[in-house]
Every structure is written in C-alpha cells, then in structure tokens.
C-alpha cells in the first residue's frame, strides 16, 4: 500500500494545529498561578544568605528582564511561540544558567529506560494473558490470573509504589529506597557495575508501573477476544477444519490486536508524563520528577519546555498510528476522513 502525499500533508497540518493549540494552553495555565517565581527564588537566596536585600531588587529586575516577565502578557506569548517554533526552550529559572533543552536531555533517558521497558512488558504480558483468558479453548486455570490483575489495575500507581517501597525496599531491603543510581558509585556508563546499579534502582519503579498497567491490557484484550470468538469468521474458520493454533493466532489474535496496538501507540506517547508521580515517589532522576519540581517552583521555561516536549511526543505517536493503521487493518484506507 502507498501512502498518498496529500494524506501525509493533511496529517502533518493537523499535527501542527494540535501543537499550536496545546502550546498556547501550556503557556496560559501556569500564568494563572498567583505567584512570582523570581521573587520566590530571591527570597530563598536571601534566606540562605547568598544575597543581601539591597542587591535583591536589582537582581530581581535583571532576572525579570532576562525572562521577559516585565513585558505585557501578549508580548510574552508571542516571544514564547516564536521561541518554541525554533525549538529554543530557553533557560531554567531555578537552575539558571542551565538550558531547558539540556535538562530534558539529561532526564528523558532515565524515564524512557524504565517506563518504556515496563510499558512494552505490560503490553506483551497483558495481551498474552488477556488472549489466553478470553479464548474459550484454553485452560480454565488462566482465569485465575484475572482477579489479581484487576486488583492491581484498580490501585493508583503511586499508592502501589509506596507499598512496594515499604515492603521490598524498606523492610526487606531488597531494593534501594530512592534515586536512579547509588551516590557511592562513579557515574560511568561503560562500567558494568554502574549499569547493574542503575538496573537495580529501576526495578522497583518499573515494577509498580508494570503491575498497574498489566491489568488494563489484560482486561481489554480479554473482552475483545470474547467478542471476536463470537464472530462468524471464527465459526467458519473452525468449519474449515483449521488447526486450533491457526484460528487463535491468525483469525482471533490478529483481529483483536488492532485496537490493542492503537492503545499501545497512544500509551507510548504518554510514556513520559505517565510516570510523574511514580518518579517523584522514588526521587527518580527522570523527566516526570523534574516536571513535578518545575511546577512546584513555577519555573515557567522548564514547565513550558517539558510539557511541550510531551505534547510533541503524543502528537507524533498519533501521527504514527494514523500512518500505520491502514497497514494493520485493510478496511481502513488513507482516502477517507
């Protein structure tokens, strides 16, 4: 199948519209908070004795000028849009003079590492379990898997994370309590010792993400499997004397995977933001934790930068789903819609 250029252009146009709208909302919402991040930063500096009250006024004015906070809102907005369009995300207020793009670059891989892995694992495991439970010709024992999975999916991730920390990290001391790596070890990616340490730290946050999302995949898959099993083409496939495995994989699973893959792509777009609370609880050096910190400090450029990054992720995931879906389901064509 060929993708018509007009379709791609249309989708990209749609993507730009989404980005623009989302970026605008992204700009306005933090501005609603009745706080002054610059003043807060200065108060902090004064409290820690790093700044005298005489120098404070001057410092505040220079910071305001630097971040353009002295200008009217509409001017700030235009500057923001213009900079965002050029992917110039500016400097963090709290971590001045760090660039926002640098902070994103440093944190995003930590998040991708454990969230991506746990999302893919949850998708694969959940889909397989759901398919086996939903298909009537498999062992009835599989259905015993559902209640615990449903229970885990009903518990919010951050609660489960706290429970896991308490029992596995605090009581049993099997896992570290917090962080992405031990402070006692050199941060050297070529050192296998360090890699193992990173893995050890990522296991618990990953496990809490995995357990929480596993049930959703399994439940969704099971209900789709039950629906598909009642379809005429399954009955006819059986009347054709096909092997059970072929009916299961080629006829049932192949058809149920369509909606499942859509959800996966959407989930991958949300990957970074989905872990914000879990990362905060584990003090994980990921992008979600960083976003939480930025919101608490009202670090405008950092919030804008990270959220915009997330929006781009979701929009790209949507675009990819739109483009690959006709390959997965021949009934959907590029021409319509």
């Amino acid at each position, binding site marked *: 199948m060929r993708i018509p250029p007009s379709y791609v252009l249309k989708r990209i146009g749609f993507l730009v519209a989404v980005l623009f709208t989302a970026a605008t909302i992204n700009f306005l919402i933090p501005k609603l908070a009745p706080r002054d991040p610059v003043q807060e930063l200065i108060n902090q500096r004064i409290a820690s004795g790093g700044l005298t009250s005489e120098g404070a006024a001057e410092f505040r004015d220079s910071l305001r000028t630097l971040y353009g906070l002295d200008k009217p809102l509409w001017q700030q907005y235009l500057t923001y849009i213009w900079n965002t369009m050029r992917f110039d995300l500016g400097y963090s207020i709290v971590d001045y003079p760090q660039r926002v793009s640098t902070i994103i670059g440093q944190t995003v891989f930590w998040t991708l590492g454990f969230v991506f892995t746990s999302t893919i694992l949850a998708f694969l495991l959940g889909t397989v379990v759901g398919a086996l439970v939903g298909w*009537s010709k498999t062992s009835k024992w599989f259905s015993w898997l559902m209640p615990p999975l449903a229970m885990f999916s009903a518990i919010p991730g951050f609660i489960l994370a706290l429970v896991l920390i308490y029992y596995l990290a605090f009581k049993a001391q099997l896992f570290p309590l917090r962080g992405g790596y031990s402070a006692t070890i050199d941060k050297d990616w070529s050192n296998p010792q360090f890699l193992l340490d990173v893995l050890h730290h990522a296991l618990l946050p990953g496990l809490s993400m995995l357990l929480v999302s596993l049930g959703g995949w399994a439940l969704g898959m099971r209900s789709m499997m039950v629906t598909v099993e009642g*379809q*005429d*083409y399954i*009955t*006819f*496939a*059986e*009347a*054709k*004397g*096909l*092997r*059970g495995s*072929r009916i299961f994989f*080629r*006829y049932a699973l*192949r*058809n149920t995977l*369509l909606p499942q893959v859509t959800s996966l792509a959407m989930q991958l777009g949300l990957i970074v933001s989905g872990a914000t609370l879990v990362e905060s609880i584990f003090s994980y050096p990921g992008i979600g934790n960083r976003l939480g910190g930025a919101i608490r400090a009202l670090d405008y450029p950092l919030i804008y930068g990270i959220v915009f990054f997330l929006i781009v992720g979701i929009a790209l995931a949507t675009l990819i789903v739109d483009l690959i879906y006709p390959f*997965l*389901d*021949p*009934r959907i064509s590029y021409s319509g819609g």
Partner: protein
Amino acid sequence: MTEPVLQVKNLKVYYYVEAGAVKAVDDVSFDLDFGVKMGLVGESGSGKSTMALALMRMIRPPGKIESGQMILDGMDLVKLSEEKMRQIRLRKLAMIPQGAMNALNPVMRIDRQLVDGMLDHGVVMSKEEREARVGQLLEMVDLAPKVAKMYPHELSGGMQQRVTVAQSISMEPDVIIADEPTSALDVVIQRQVMDTINRLQQRLGLSIILIGHDMGLMAQSVDRLAVMYAGKMMEIGETRAMFRSPLHPYTRLLIESLPVLENKGVFSGIPGITPSLLNPPEGCVFHTRCPKAWDLCREKIPEFAEVQPGRWVACHLHTA
C-alpha cells in the same frame, strides 16, 4: 442399493440451561445418498441450524450431542476425537455458512484464506501451485482471478458467499452442508449463487444438505426434502412427491403457505407459534397447531416410519 454417504441415527442435541434441557434436535434420523441434494426446512427454532452445527460437531457448551450416531464414510462422527474431527471438516464434510458478510477474516486476503484450509489438511503446494489452485477455485464459482488479492470488505455479499462456496469445495468433500447460504442475498444474486452451487454439485458429484426456510427455493433446487419442526423430523421424501401429496399436515401447511399469484393479497400462514423446546407438548409436538389432531396425537409420540419406499413421516394419520 448403495450405502448412503451420510447416515444420521437417533441424533439428540440438547442445550442445558438453568431451567432444564432444551431439546433442539430430538431423535432425528435420516439418510443422505451419494450425489443427492437434500433440503432441510423448518421454521426458526426448529433445530435446522443446530442440525448443521451438530453434523460439523461444532456444538458449543451449554449445548451437547446427547446421543445418536452420524455415520460418514463408515465412521461415527459422534465418537471421533476432536483432532480426527478437525481433519474430517472441509476434507469430507464442508460447510457453507449462513452470514457470508462476516464469514471471512477481514484482515486476510482471499487467496490466503482459501489456501490455509488446504494447508491445515496436509496439502503441500508450491507458490505456483497455490496460485493455480486459487485461480481454479475462483473460476469454479465464477469469480475473477483478481479477487484472490482482495480483502473481504472489497467484495459484495454475493461475491463473499461465492468465496465461501469456493472454500467449501477446495478439498472436494463428500458432503456439503449449506446453512441458508442465500438468505442474506437479494433474489437475483440468490438465484446466481444457487445456480453455481447446483452446477458444482453435478460437476463434482457432491451430496448437499441445503438448510433453509424458503419452500419455493427448495422446490426448485433439491431432490429430497426433509421437514423439521420443534427439533423433530416430521417428513422426508422426494421433493416432487412431497409437493404433490404432502403426508404430514405440517408439510401441507408449509406448502399451502407459499404465496400464489392468483390469490393476490391473501396469505395463509400456520396459526400459533412453535412450542417451547424446554417443555415440548406431550405426544406429537405439532398437535397444538395441527388441524387434524385427534386424541392419540395428544398422548403418544408418533413413530418416524417409512410409509412408502424412501418416504418417511412421523404422523399418527399414516402410521397408526
């Protein structure tokens, strides 16, 4: 006389629900001879589709083949293992499904669907042989070769039904069960598909069980007719003889309910509704609607007996 290709003896298929056993097929017997096309008619809920599924051994829980025999090629299908039965399907006993619009896998091209049935029955084919076989099958059902590379949604209902017909003959089975193969199609397409099935039947020497409720269609296309009512066989005989002189009052009513052009605007149906299969009436199941019912009909189940050569009926009028 040659042995029939398929013999059904005292077949009972029950569905077990909370309120008890629903006797969807109750003590049904018939023979199907080589090369014969037999129609199986009855109202909705008479057990004809259950009959089709039972012959394919595809009754799902809570349904169960309670007892009886289905002898095909010397084997009792009721007793076969699941895997043996799978090998019988399509190779000896094939089905043309009811709803052609949903009978094909929506995400698979037609050629692959036609081929996978053959592959799972141990047919080894090279790529060229597959293409040739698919082309041949499509041609046999009057479909263009380009259909091979199409998806089901790109075909009309009639074309999809032709694909299922092609599928059913792909292993050259002895018996084909066609479960209302044309009920979802308009009359013109219905006619064409039936012509195709008839032609293939003669060409390949198939025996066909054609299930349906359309007495008019049956009159035109089948050699023998079997009439079911409330899970029981009422009458079996040669189609012409049945239409000329129906023995069972139910058969007579079915034939009389066919609209006649001269009596425009007048419909004669059969008053009443089919009885509950959970608690069928005592005696003959049809006595509640039968214009000729008498005392015996309310007390004793009529025996299904051969009253003339090749003519079977379950009615006290003819057997008592």
